[in-house]
């Protein structure tokens, strides 16, 4: 399965993925809430069965991990991307051990995560876990007989994750392929998920997240509290006071773009590409760049990347560039088998 085929399947039907890059930890004990409140960036307004999308920062307010925090009865769990599982555990222990440390259990040895994404992901989920799962609200989860099923996703389409023991995940994987054949289910790798995240302006800690910038430059302030102290909050407040010098900005290019390309404006360097790829869905090269704040606005079509005696024109745009099919699907009305009976807007937007 090529990258392009996997991306097109994710945009049009449903894909399954092994989310081995997602680390699963549980945090328990009377001090669990307070401890997590001291490290997680959002205000911890989370009820049983809900997920919160947040970050873990280092002391300089650079992003350390991209997290979902779940409140599960008397416990919490973290689904984290970025650091390795031992580094994540070490981070949590280091920053919560000063007073009444919680119990932290790394669950990776006996759990895996299966991802289900696509405009018809809900239909596949209904086939393998039961029709009652179809109405699962965004950023919530429930317990199945063998694990946890949550709804989140970083592709702009319906997205779910199933956490269970490795043998259960293997069984579900086979079952997805078997019953999902009627939905044209396709396997998607991390490269396809990353490409879809890029198309839909979902933060990718393995690309733009590697830059030594804060959530302010990354336009992730919606994920951080300005009302409480947490690791990195003081550095973040200082950066906010100084004012950012750069801002992550989306681009459409007139030719191949790659990470590290310098963004020019006339004869001046005004930024750098930090994520890029050819969008099969949009049929154009798309990129994210850290751009000098003075120019960090969409709709400017005079940027360029100069490489190999060639000048590639760049236009800043308002993301996401994809008009996701999932925006127009209602599980009570639509289904994969009747998809040709409906007219949907062009995926590549207007």
């Amino acid at each position, binding site marked *: 399965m090529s990258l392009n085929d996997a991306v097109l399947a994710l945009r049009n039907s449903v894909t399954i993925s092994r989310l081995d890059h997602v680390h699963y930890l549980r945090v328990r004990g009377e001090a669990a809430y307070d401890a997590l409140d001291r490290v997680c960036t959002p205000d911890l307004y989370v009820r049983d069965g809900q997920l919160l999308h947040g970050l873990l920062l280092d002391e300089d307010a650079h992003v350390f991990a991209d997290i979902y925090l779940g409140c599960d009865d008397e416990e919490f769990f973290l689904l984290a991307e970025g650091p390795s599982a031992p580094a994540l555990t070490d981070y949590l222990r280091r920053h919560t051990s000063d007073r009444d440390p919680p119990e932290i259990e790394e669950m990776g040895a006996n759990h895996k995560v299966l991802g289900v994404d696509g405009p018809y992901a809900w239909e596949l989920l209904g086939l393998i876990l039961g029709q009652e799962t179809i109405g699962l609200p965004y*950023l919530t989860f429930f317990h199945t007989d063998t694990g946890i099923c949550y709804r989140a996703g970083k592709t702009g389409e319906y997205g779910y994750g199933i956490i269970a023991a490795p043998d259960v995940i293997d069984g579900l994987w086979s079952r997805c392929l078997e019953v999902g054949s009627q939905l044209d289910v396709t396997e998607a790798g991390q490269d396809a998920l990353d490409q879809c995240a890029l198309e839909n302006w979902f933060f990718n800690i393995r690309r733009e997240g590697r830059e030594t910038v804060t959530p302010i430059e990354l*336009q*992730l302030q*919606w994920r951080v509290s300005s009302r409480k102290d947490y690791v990195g909050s003081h550095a973040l407040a200082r950066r*906010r006071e100084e004012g950012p010098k750069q*801002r992550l900005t989306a681009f459409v290019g007139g030719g191949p773009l790659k990470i590290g390309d310098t963004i020019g404006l006339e004869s001046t360097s005004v930024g750098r590409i930090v994520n890029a790829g050819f969008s099969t869905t949009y049929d154009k090269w798309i990129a994210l760049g850290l751009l000098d704040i003075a120019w960090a*606005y*969409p709709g400017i079509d005079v940027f360029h990347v100069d490489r190999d005696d060639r000048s590639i024109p760049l236009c800043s745009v*308002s993301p996401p560039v994809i008009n996701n099919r999932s*925006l127009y699907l209602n599980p009570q009305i639509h289904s994969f088998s009747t998809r040709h009976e409906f007219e949907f807007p062009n995926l590549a937007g207007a």
Partner: protein
Amino acid sequence: MTPELKRQIEQREEVLAKVRRMLIDKLHVERTPEELDPDTPIFGSGLGLDSIDHVELVLFLERDFGIRETSVTEGRAAMRTINLLVDLILAAQEGNVVLE
């Protein structure tokens, strides 16, 4: 910076400021304007606004910018982020009304 580009950025900043003010004053988003990044998602994750807030947004567009919206689904797509909302308003001001 050319005068045209300067005007384009100023015009955008002006509309962005109005949209941020509306989100704070009318939709009770508990943030300062500087904390509302231009490409922040408006619904679901991001600012977490819901379908009731969407109605308020539609009223804001009609009242303050004369943009009439009859297609709720198309409206949702055009209002996914703060910047997309700004794009919509700027297009309307230039006579290129996206939704009517």
